[in-house]
């Protein structure tokens, strides 16, 4: 690990100037479960680490008039065990409880989970000077791409690793961002960026910005959500494929739906076509399989990952049927 200095930030306002305007020179430390690994592998080599945990009051789960507010440093464990979230935003609770292990959930934070860096083994290895590490090759294209993207990839084919982001996007969540000129708010739909737009980052945060709140619109009546994650082991693993679905039902009919895929694209992959298709439909097996097929219509697998198409279709259809 490269030597660095650390600074305890004392307020939200001062963080942007501590971070500076150039990516890489400083990193925020929240839970640290992702950052420490990146530092150990020399993937991140900052001069400064800005500790956010020294700022009071960034850890909360609050129901307000316009919805749920989650502090950026709220741990995944606190979300997992929150009765408020379990009762009203169950899809988020399900997603969070499927993350890693108890030890990681006890320190990992919600903002950190959304902003974590990809788990692509080429990106994570010092030996590969890949696109995301400033090189000129995506090694997955001619290498082993079993766990890489089947949708939205190119020129880099990472999959976004976050489970919570998939669930939050299905809840139409947004994030509050602090920058040098004050706060701004962005829908998660717009927050994440594809590699074709920015190869070096997975989201629209500038170097001197950080997430200060997660905002989830109030839950609607007769609405349920489900998160299905496929992984090889029942703990520790990131998703091979996942899906978050929410549906508002009146009787057998779906009046509104959100469908977001995880583990298959460089960003949490929302499928608006499918959401529209489901609207007003009676949920039957045929409808669910048609929706599942539609969700993967754009899939363009690589040499080793075409299995993901059917796997993802299957969980999409299963999730829809489970909610009906």
């Amino acid at each position, binding site marked *: *690990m*490269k*030597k*660095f*200095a*650390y600074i305890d930030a004392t307020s939200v306002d001062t963080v942007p100037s501590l971070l500076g305007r150039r990516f890489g020179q400083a990193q925020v*430390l929240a839970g*640290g*479960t992702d950052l*420490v*690994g990146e*530092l*150990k592998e020399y993937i991140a080599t900052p001069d400064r*680490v800005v*500790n956010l*945990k020294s700022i009071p009051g960034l850890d909360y789960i609050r129901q307000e008039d316009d919805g749920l507010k989650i502090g950026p440093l709220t*741990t995944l*464990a606190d979300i997992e065990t929150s009765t408020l979230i379990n009762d009203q935003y169950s899809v988020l609770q399900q997603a969070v409880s499927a993350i*890693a*292990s*108890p*030890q*990681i959930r*006890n*320190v990992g934070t919600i903002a950190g989970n959304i902003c974590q860096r990809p788990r692509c083994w080429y990106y994570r290895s010092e030996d590969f000077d890949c696109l995301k590490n400033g090189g000129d090759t995506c090694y997955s294209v001619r290498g082993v791409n079993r766990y890489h993207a089947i949708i939205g990839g190119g020129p880099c084919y990472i999959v976004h690793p976050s489970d919570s982001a998939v669930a939050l996007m299905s809840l139409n969540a947004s994030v509050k961002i602090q920058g040098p000129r004050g706060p701004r708010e962005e829908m998660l739909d717009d927050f994440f960026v594809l590699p074709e737009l920015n190869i070096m980052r997975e989201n629209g945060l500038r170097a001197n910005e950080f997430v200060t709140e997660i905002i989830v619109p109030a839950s609607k009546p007769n609405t349920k959500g489900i998160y299905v994650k496929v992984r090889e082991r*029942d*703990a*520790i693993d990131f998703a091979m494929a996942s899906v978050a679905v929410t549906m508002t039902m009146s009787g057998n009919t779906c009046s509104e739906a959100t469908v977001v895929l995880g583990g298959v694209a460089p960003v949490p992959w929302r499928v608006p076509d499918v959401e529209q298709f489901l609207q007003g439909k009676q949920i039957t097996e045929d409808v669910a399989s048609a929706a599942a097929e539609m969700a993967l219509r754009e899939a363009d697998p690589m040499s080793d990952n075409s299995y993901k198409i059917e796997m993802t279709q299957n969980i999409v259809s299963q999730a829809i049927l489970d909610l009906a």
Partner: protein
Amino acid sequence: MSSKVHVQARINGDDVEFLCEPRQSLLEVLRDVLGYTGTKEGCNNGNCGACSVILEGRLVNSCLVFGFEIQGKELQTIEGMGSPEELHPVQQQFLENAALQCGICTPGFIVSTKALLDKNPDPTEAEVRYWLAGNLCRCTGYDKIVRAVLDAAKAIKNS
């Protein structure tokens, strides 16, 4: 600027002070700086749980926490759990159930079990497996570990 930071913390009830580099993990500080070698390194990357400790009442992997982060905090390690004369019930049940073979993962499992039973004194087998899934054991197949945890819960309840 000095390259080391001064940290004060409470470890197993004792006030402890030390100097460490910012880049030294809590695991490194415990083992190399303070000599608390009961906390083990298995992967140094948060994937095996051998370095589990309880920080401010929460179970964490000490390899993913920096030493400086425990400033002013309360830490419990395996060294603070029971003594040879008076074992903690979890330790006693690990022995009775032969829930260890090589023993390298054992301190992590025992600390994790304590954290589990502190929160949930009467777990089911499924809950035990869920809450211990961050601790890898390569010797036992977990069978005897899970039994030891269930027996420890009973022993604590009956005591």
